[in-house]
């Protein structure tokens, strides 16, 4: 830090602008092209204002409080108030900065910002919203820095700034004189205002943005130098693990052998915390042995009596009734169940904490660090400004790291134990006591006559999703901007209504969520409600097509709302050779999805000769994300969404048995492996057409639909319960 501080830097802090972003709430779905004869569906709330719009609105007052520094060595450092979990955001942002400043990509360093409470709602990573919310502010910030650098060069040479050009971070005068950004940084810092216009480049002039780039941290990742939370060297921080209860939210009544455990090799401390008993030791191996040796009398948890069958019954009973009578009309009726799913990022929940009497420092993978900071400050009894929360790049999230439970635990242990600790969750705990996508029940009824779909009703019942990580507050703050009827809904309802919509003209379309509150650890999982909700709808779309005697692709084409949607569908059917003949037991399937101003289609082929061991053998995906920043990163996100869909549709889920998930590792929670993945994948990112849409979660729902539809066709079944192969094919680990 000191060596950095001694260097002279150009620090650029752009003042907060007006609420300009508020004007961008779009009405783009209001005037869709209607397929011949199809019964138009009026726009759903999510067509008018989607969740991303709301988050942008909530973050707008602080959207341009971004920090970019030009160092004397020419390195551009950009502080990013978001979390990187593998989604490729740091690379995309570095590209935007490099583009505006005309420097080679490797010269831009992106550093994840510590928790900055002054950003209020502008430091939450989720809802596929980072690029959408940062695209303009990042470009404007970089453009402003560039303007100052040019002004400094112009003054140095006594020429007008407009006559200067920039190549690879070198400012070039008309007479050929050059100056590096680094050499101009100090002079530029003294300019309080410039006459150089600071508008970002025209998008048509982009040369880097929109072209595929390798991750900026790829080399660190393949050489083992990429540091995750527990790889950080925090002096004196000792390994720590927690013994957790035999059921969710169980309590510690009594530790029966504390002194014996304290005497075990390497053990430094044993501390009771709210969620269990923490052991601090010299190595994680010793911490694990010691926490396992603890003999504990446990108190009851919050859902001890509950098992899958009860939860399924509760969901079914709670689900809202259908409105359209199911008599005297031609219709498709279908009910679906989806199991709980673990987020299961490969890096388990972890944090480093160093809590002193007068200050605290925390390191963890945090997507909502401002909320984490406030909670930690409260828990350790310090003012918020005495708690420094570092956001560490992490090993996957899929929604998980919106929660900061490991950071909170580590802080409490560090305070109680009086030493810095590195706290790690075991995989078993991560799966059993971690967060999960809630189980859902779906009731769908679609009616039709004379070849047209007249109504499409979808009733979703879900175990309550926990949004108490900051997203809920952002929604409350923006409630006034919601279309009539949504403003007073609960967080979950609002989220559902601002994310779930149908891309089809299916006449009167209604999608309703009912939540069943159960005291379990839930959380939004990549694509939140859409994975199950839209996945189930895509299955019904195939069944409707079959009843109407139509090809699934031709049927979708006829009912999709816009030409843009149809282009994406056409791309996969053409590239994927839709309709090609396949051997017995194999089949193709297709799915479509639209969210956050992006749309995608997915075509898969499945080998289900053994229905118990299906394998997706080939996948073709096309996506229109409005404006791709890094097509390579986008393809990676779509590939990840495909793998998620293969997993949760075919084999991966959690069984709840008497208050605890049975699965405790990847040998039991069957997330796909190489042998379950297609050998042939083609992904097409459509050319830029508009502003950037969301893409981090986009891939899941269409792939769920495509895989389920392919499986149905290959096996001649109607899958209704997911994952389709969900036997308990393992011996569960002991409960505690």
């Amino acid at each position: 830090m000191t060596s950095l501080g001694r260097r002279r830097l150009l620090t650029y802090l752009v003042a907060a602008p007006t609420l300009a972003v508020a004007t961008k709430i779009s009405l783009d779905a209001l005037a869709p092209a209607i397929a011949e004869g199809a019964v138009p569906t009026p726009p759903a709330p999510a067509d008018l204002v989607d969740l991303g719009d709301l988050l942008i609105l909530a973050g707008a007052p602080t959207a341009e409080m971004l920090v970019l520094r030009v160092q004397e060595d020419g390195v551009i450092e950009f502080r990013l108030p978001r979390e990187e979990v593998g989604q490729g955001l740091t690379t995309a942002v570095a590209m935007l900065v490099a583009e505006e400043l005309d420097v080679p990509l490797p010269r831009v360093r992106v550093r994840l910002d510590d928790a900055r409470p002054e950003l209020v709602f502008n430091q939450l990573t989720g809802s596929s919203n980072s690029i959408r919310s940062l695209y303009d502010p990042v470009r404007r910030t970089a453009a402003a820095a560039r303007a100052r650098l040019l002004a400094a060069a112009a003054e140095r040479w006594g020429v007008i700034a407009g006559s200067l050009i920039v190549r690879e971070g070198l400012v070039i005068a008309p007479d050929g004189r050059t100056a590096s950004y680094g050499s101009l940084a100090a002079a530029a810092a003294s300019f309080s205002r410039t006459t150089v216009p600071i508008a970002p480049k025209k998008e048509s002039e982009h040369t880097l943005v929109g072209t595929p780039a390798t991750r900026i941290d790829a080399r660190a990742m393949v050489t083992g130098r990429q540091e995750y939370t527990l790889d950080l060297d925090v002096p004196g921080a000792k390994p720590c693990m927690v013994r957790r209860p035999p059921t969710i939210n169980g309590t510690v009544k009594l530790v029966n052998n504390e002194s014996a455990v304290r005497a075990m090799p390497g053990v430094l401390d044993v501390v009771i915390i709210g969620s269990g008993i923490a052991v601090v030791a010299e190595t994680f191996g010793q911490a694990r042995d010691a926490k396992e040796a603890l003999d504990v009398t446990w108190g009851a948890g919050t859902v001890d009596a509950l098992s899958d069958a009860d939860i399924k019954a509760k969901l079914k009973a709670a689900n809202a009734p259908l409105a359209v009578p199911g008599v005297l009309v031609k219709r498709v009726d279908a009910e679906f169940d989806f199991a709980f799913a673990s987020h299961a990022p490969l890096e388990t929940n972890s944090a480093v904490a160093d809590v002193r009497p007068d200050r605290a420092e925390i390191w963890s993978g945090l997507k909502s660090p401002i909320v984490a900071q406030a909670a930690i400050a409260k828990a350790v009894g310090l003012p918020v400004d005495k708690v420094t929360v570092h956001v560490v790049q992490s090993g996957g999230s899929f929604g998980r790291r919106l929660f900061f439970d490991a950071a909170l635990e580590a802080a409490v242990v560090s305070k109680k134990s009086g030493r810095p600790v590195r706290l790690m969750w075991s995989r078993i705990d991560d799966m059993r006591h971690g967060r999960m996508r809630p189980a859902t029940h779906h009731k769908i009824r679609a009616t039709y006559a004379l070849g047209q779909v007249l109504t499409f009703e979808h009733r979703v019942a879900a175990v309550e999703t926990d949004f108490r990580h900051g997203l809920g507050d952002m929604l409350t703050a923006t409630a006034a901007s919601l279309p009539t009827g949504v403003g007073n809904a609960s967080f979950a309802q609002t989220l559902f209504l601002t994310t779930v919509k149908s891309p089809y003209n299916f006449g009167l379309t209604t999608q309703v969520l009912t939540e069943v509150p159960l005291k379990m650890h839930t959380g939004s999982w990549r694509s939140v409600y859409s994975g199950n909700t839209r996945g189930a709808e895509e299955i019904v779309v195939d069944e409707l097509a079959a009843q109407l005697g139509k090809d699934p692709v031709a049927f979708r084409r006829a009912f999709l709302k816009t030409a843009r949607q149809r282009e994406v569908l056409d791309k996969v059917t053409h590239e994927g050779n839709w309709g090609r003949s396949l051997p017995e037991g194999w089949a193709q399937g297709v799915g479509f999805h639209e969210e956050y101003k992006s749309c995608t289609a997915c075509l898969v082929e499945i080998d289900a000769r053994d229905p118990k061991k299906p394998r997706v053998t080939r996948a073709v995906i096309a996506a229109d994300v409005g404006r791709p920043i890094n097509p390579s990163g986008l393809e990676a996100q779509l590939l990840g969404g495909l793998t998620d869909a293969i997993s949760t549709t075919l084999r991966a889920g959690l069984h709840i048995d008497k208050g605890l998930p049975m699965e405790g590792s990847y040998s039991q929670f069957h997330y796909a492996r190489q042998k379950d993945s297609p050998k042939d994948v083609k992904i097409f990112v459509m050319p830029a057409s508009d502003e950037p849409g969301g893409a981090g979660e986009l891939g899941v729902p269409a792939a769920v639909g495509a895989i389920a539809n392919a499986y149905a066709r290959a096996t001649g079944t109607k899958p209704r319960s997911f994952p389709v192969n969900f036997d308990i094919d393992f011996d569960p680990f002991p409960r505690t």
Partner: protein
Amino acid sequence: MPSHTFIVNGKTVTVNAPDDLPLLWALRDLLGVRGPKYGCGIDVCKACTSHLDGEAIRPCVVPVSEATGREVTTIEGLADGDELHPVQQAWLEQDVAQCGYCQPGQIMAAVALLKRKKSLTDADIDEIANVCRCGTYFRIREAIKSAAAKMA
């Protein structure tokens, strides 16, 4: 406390640890070698995959005593200085990593496989059971194939 001497990435090291301490924790906690990652601790996720005398092992289930007198290579020891191993190079070319957490293990598994078999089939690649929760499998497959072609 027993002491164990072995070679890690070309350097001789000695650690004092119980015989049964998993090598993973000897590496990460006692030696500061943090390329191998924890993901399960029971030989399921394979995130910790490293080499013992050139063969793939999962140090989360190998006791440190077993390394005595032998040669451990972790992801940090794969490149030759700044010169990346062809498999690492292929990983860059295919832009494989997402979160990157599984990739040290994936790369070490692929290198070990390529050592055993010069020409690879898709079925050989399917045998790599390392979990990638970000779902990068297809790019891993492509990277292994391109590395194999270059190394042949």
